[in-house]
């Protein structure tokens, strides 16, 4: 929202200091996005009349203009524009002028003929951002003077405000000025109103056919209208505020909206003299002011000429083209209304049509602001229409549902409880009264009547916020509450951090791929894609599926890095995955959980197994490796499912060659994927210290041949059981395939360290254990070599 300092200062005695005002605006919650000085006079630019123009046979792109700045001396200027002619008054930048863009005007010649200055366009003078040629001034303008003075363009300051949803009144200068006046402790005056001649009573019949959507509609008749151009100050204000000047009637209408946040529309009284506000009929067509034919539905609200039932405006959004004020208009019907904000918002979205009016209506305008708005409209228009009469008998059709002032009870202790300040009755009155709130004290409570231009103020806390704003956030002080809880990481959070440190120690880099996948991504890494959640409104189809595994993202990151010849690609991620819930009625949210995934390029399953073992150690957890269940997307003969009983919690090994081919990845890729939520949730008990056994230990080495089909862990488990309580550790220290071992088998050599509690093992005891181990191995299908 652009706001002009000059208008603010007309409405209240504010300091003539843009920085001071900007600071105040910020501290009141109207964030100043930019401060722009406009209409800065350009010394050296004066008005000049074009006496005659001449073409030069050798210069077809420029015209020779002979101008007079009032002293009767003809000056020669080359000009590239084409919109001027003899008799026009234009701005001349004389020799030595520095233009707003920094360019200096020097005596320059074309074809050896000097130019004694430059004729200027509005852009060059910094008063507009668009133009098609020279700025043509009114024909009777005095010569040799500052064209800004002629145009009434004042040096002004525009604040661009970023307004919040709860301050609809600031969409008009009045709202901003009122807040500033309170801040600077000066009186709020409001717009200048002159006494306009009052005509006889002429009321306009109004019907509210849909009072829930439009509960208030007003109409006033103004006669004696002469459609002409606006006074300079009106044009200047509109230009600074970014609106085009159309004619005095439309301009007055727009300026009233910008000043008072009261959108309004002037119809030609000759064509519209009675109104109805009703739902459109489906298929009804209205050509709006922008020239577009809008096909309406019964969801749309239209303003209708009650005489013939034809729509003349899309309620609260845009007027119709047909009933526009035209050159011959002498009487207007000025319409102002209050529309239900939500319905305006829906209509705007339905038609994709947003206007200055709809922006204001959907935030909320003052339902009681129409009388002053009509007066201001008349005041502005009367400057160009000396015979203007504002007719008595303004119609204000109002339904009971139209919002009116609210009464809100504010407890004094609640102010203290929220803001930490003890305010007296007078303090509260002094803070709230200047911004339009009426306060009466009743014991420890205040009865606050909220102004109708503040629809956001509905309850106690809203009023407390207003008190805080005008008391000043800075003045409320700073204190630190003494936390009554102990700051710490939860156990799960501590364990997650331990895993992160482990990943770093293992030399793995954390990636953060998008949790959104493209259709086919899961399938291409060998996972099931039938049961996934999709986005209803994805930005692009490539990001329409919610991941059920981290693998697609990490593998595609791996492929990307490989294709950029990264020397080592070892990535990890801890992130959420979102498998759909089984019963979306009782459990609408997905079975979201945290996964850990690691992928390492050019690495085999040993790498993944090392990582899995390290993770188990880090978290003091364990699980079985089950090679009989081939995990989806993993190498069928070089991977295992990580299981706890029947529950599958992850997979470890190498990525399937089919998947690697799909993704165009060469070499092996080690991969570990686990349900981290389960592992983090476990709370291992503190390990209790064991006495160090100081008796001598003995090692026995046993090598077995065993079928490739049988898992080595089966043999180890058998040995462990057979060795019993005296086993201190067991390790697989050698694996051998080749001469001496049958095809389809391998030799597995285990070392068992034996040690007895409270004594030394005798040779016969060791022999006994050895025999038991060999027997147990035999039972599990392994034979001693």
């Amino acid at each position, binding site marked *: 929202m652009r706001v002009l300092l000059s208008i603010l200062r007309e409405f209240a005695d504010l300091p003539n200091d843009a920085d001071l005002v900007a600071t105040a605006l910020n501290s009141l919650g109207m964030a100043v996005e930019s401060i722009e000085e406009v209409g800065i006079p350009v010394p050296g630019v004066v008005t000049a009349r074009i006496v005659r123009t001449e073409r030069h046979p050798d210069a077809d792109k420029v015209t020779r203009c002979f101008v007079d700045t009032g002293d009767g001396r003809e000056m020669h200027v080359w000009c590239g524009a084409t919109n001027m002619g003899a008799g026009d008054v234009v701005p001349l930048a004389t020799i030595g002028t520095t233009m707003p863009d920094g360019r200096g005007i020097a005596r320059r010649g074309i074809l050896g003929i000097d130019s004694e200055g430059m004729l200027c366009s509005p852009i060059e003078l910094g008063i507009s951002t668009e133009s098609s040629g020279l700025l043509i001034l009114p024909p009777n303008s005095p010569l040799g003077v500052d064209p800004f003075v002629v145009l009434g363009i004042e040096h002004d300051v525009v604040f661009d405000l970023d307004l919040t949803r709860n301050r609809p009144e600031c969409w008009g200068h009045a709202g901003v000025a009122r807040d500033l006046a309170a801040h600077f402790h000066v009186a709020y005056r409001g717009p200048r109103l002159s006494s306009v001649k009052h005509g006889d009573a002429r009321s306009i019949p109004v019907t509210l056919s849909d009072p829930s959507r439009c509960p208030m509609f007003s109409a006033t008749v103004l006669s004696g209208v002469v459609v002409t151009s606006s006074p300079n100050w009106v044009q200047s204000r509109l230009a600074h505020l970014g609106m085009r000047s159309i004619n005095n009637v439309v301009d007055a209408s727009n300026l009233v909206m910008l000043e008072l946040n009261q959108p309004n529309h002037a119809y030609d009284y000759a064509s519209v003299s009675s109104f109805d506000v009703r739902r459109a009929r489906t298929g009804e067509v209205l050509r709006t002011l922008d020239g577009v034919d809008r096909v309406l539905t019964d969801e749309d609200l239209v303003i209708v000429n009650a005489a013939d039932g034809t729509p003349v405006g899309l309620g609260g959004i845009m007027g119709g083209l047909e009933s526009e004020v035209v050159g011959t208009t002498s009487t207007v019907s000025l319409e102002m209304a209050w529309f239900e904000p939500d319905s305006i918002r829906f209509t705007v979205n339905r038609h994709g049509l947003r206007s200055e009016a709809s922006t204001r209506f959907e935030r909320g305008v003052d339902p009681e602001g129409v009388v002053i708005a009509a007066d201001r409209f008349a005041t502005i228009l009367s400057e160009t229409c000396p015979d203007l009469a504002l007719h008595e008998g303004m119609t204000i059709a109002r339904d009971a549902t139209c919002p009116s002032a609210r009464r809100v009870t504010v407890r004094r202790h609640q102010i203290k409880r929220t803001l930490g300040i003890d305010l007296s009755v007078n303090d509260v009155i002094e803070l709230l009264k200047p911004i339009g709130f009426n306060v009466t004290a009743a014991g420890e409570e205040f009865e606050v009547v909220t102004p109708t231009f503040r629809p956001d103020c509905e309850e106690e*806390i809203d009023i407390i916020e207003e008190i805080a704003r005008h008391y000043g956030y800075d003045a409320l002080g700073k204190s630190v509450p003494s936390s009554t*809880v102990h700051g710490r990481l939860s156990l799960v959070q501590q364990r997650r951090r331990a895993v*992160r440190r482990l*990943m770093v120690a293992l030399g793995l*880099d*954390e990636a*953060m791929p998008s949790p959104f996948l493209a259709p086919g991504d899961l399938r291409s890494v060998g996972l099931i894609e039938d049961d996934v*959640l*999709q986005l209803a409104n994805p930005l692009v189809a490539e990001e329409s599926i919610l991941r059920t595994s981290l693998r697609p993202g990490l593998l595609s990151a791996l492929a990307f890095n490989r294709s950029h010849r990264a020397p080592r690609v070892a990535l990890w991620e801890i992130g*959420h995955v979102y498998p759909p819930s089984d019963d979306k009625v009782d459990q609408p949210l997905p079975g979201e959980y945290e996964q850990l995934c690691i992928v390492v390029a050019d690495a085999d399953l040993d790498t993944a197994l090392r990582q899995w073992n390290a993770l188990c150690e880090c978290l003091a957890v364990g699980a079985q490796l089950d090679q009989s269940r081939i995990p989806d997307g993993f190498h069928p003969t070089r991977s295992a499912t990580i299981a706890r009983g029947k529950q599958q919690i992850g997979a470890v090994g190498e990525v399937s060659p089919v998947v690697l081919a799909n993704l165009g990845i060469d070499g092996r890729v080690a991969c570990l994927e686990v349900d981290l939520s389960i592992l983090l949730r476990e709370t291992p008990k503190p390990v209790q210290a064991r006495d160090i056994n100081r008796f001598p230990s003995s090692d026995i080495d046993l090598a077995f041949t065993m079928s490739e089909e049988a898992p080595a862990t089966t043999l180890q488990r058998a040995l462990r059981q057979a060795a019993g309580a005296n086993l201190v550790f067991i390790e697989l220290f050698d694996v051998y395939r080749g001469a001496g071992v049958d095809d389809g088998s391998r030799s597995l050599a285990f070392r068992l360290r034996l040690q007895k509690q409270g004594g030394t093992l005798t040779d016969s005891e060791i022999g006994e254990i050895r025999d038991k181990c060999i027997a147990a191995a035999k039972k599990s299908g392994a034979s001693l070599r």
Partner: protein
Amino acid sequence: MGTQSGEISAALSRALEALGAASSPEDVRSIVSQVTGKRGSLGLLKSSLGSIADIEERKEVGASINAASTRLAEAADTRIAELSASELHRVIERDRVDVTERALKTDVAARLGRTHLVTQATERLEDVFIGLGFQIAEGPEVESDFYNFEALNMPPSHPARSMWDTLFVDQDPQGSVLLRTHTSPVQIRVMQEWPPPIYAIMPGRVFRRDTPDATHMPVFHQIEGMVIDRNITFADLAGTIEAFTKAFFGSEFTSRLRPSYFPFTEPSAEFDIRRPDGSWIELGGCGMMHPRVIRAGGLDPDEWSGFAFGFGIDRMAKERHGVADLRDMYSNDVRFLEQFP
């Protein structure tokens, strides 16, 4: 006497010469035993002592032989020590490597892994808030309309919902399940699950329907803070923001609050951080928890009051490390990731 004395010193100097030429401790020992043995030069001289008639002379010659023997033994020890040292030296020399060459080998030079910049920033923030007495709460990223909007004082069709471009999950009833647009829904979950007083921060991933550019990502990270206790005032909010500012950015940084609007807090504010050079960083939003939000969390706003604040994590990481384009942070390009240990 003269003859014998000359023979002794000649024998000693011959023996010392031989020691000098010895190439191993064994050589040394055999030279010594040769010279002092029965048939050795000194040994022979010793055995001929008996033939000296004069007692005094015999004593004198005997002492000379002993002195020569001692001298030889000492020289032998020295020579053995010399030879052992050079043997060790040879062994050590055999082990010699170019340490700098080894340092360059791929497996030796392998660097540590990395945590993502966002993870680093999150952990730093968490640590600061833990120091201020906060605990850390987490919540789901796929949320219901209730937690993301309704409980946060945004009933259906509330205009403020349009402050966020929401991504919805395609699930009936449409609009009921969405990707959380902020971490604020965790506030409600925490109030429902944790007994007050509550001092919690809630970092996490959030989603908006935004086209990625240098400063926006559809998936990014926020951290939310919340305090619920008895008699919490606006000054406590401002003071907590200030304490965080100093703890996280440094003691020479300060903060300010400007009025703003959020549906779930009132009074609401934007908070800015002032750098030592006087410039400002617009960091995030905050405010006193709206009584309706406290009620939605199952607590009585007349008994409990509190405040909440939130800001983006990604931007913190971006500014700290001078990352020009947010998209680089999510490129998963090792050349980017490896830069930040």
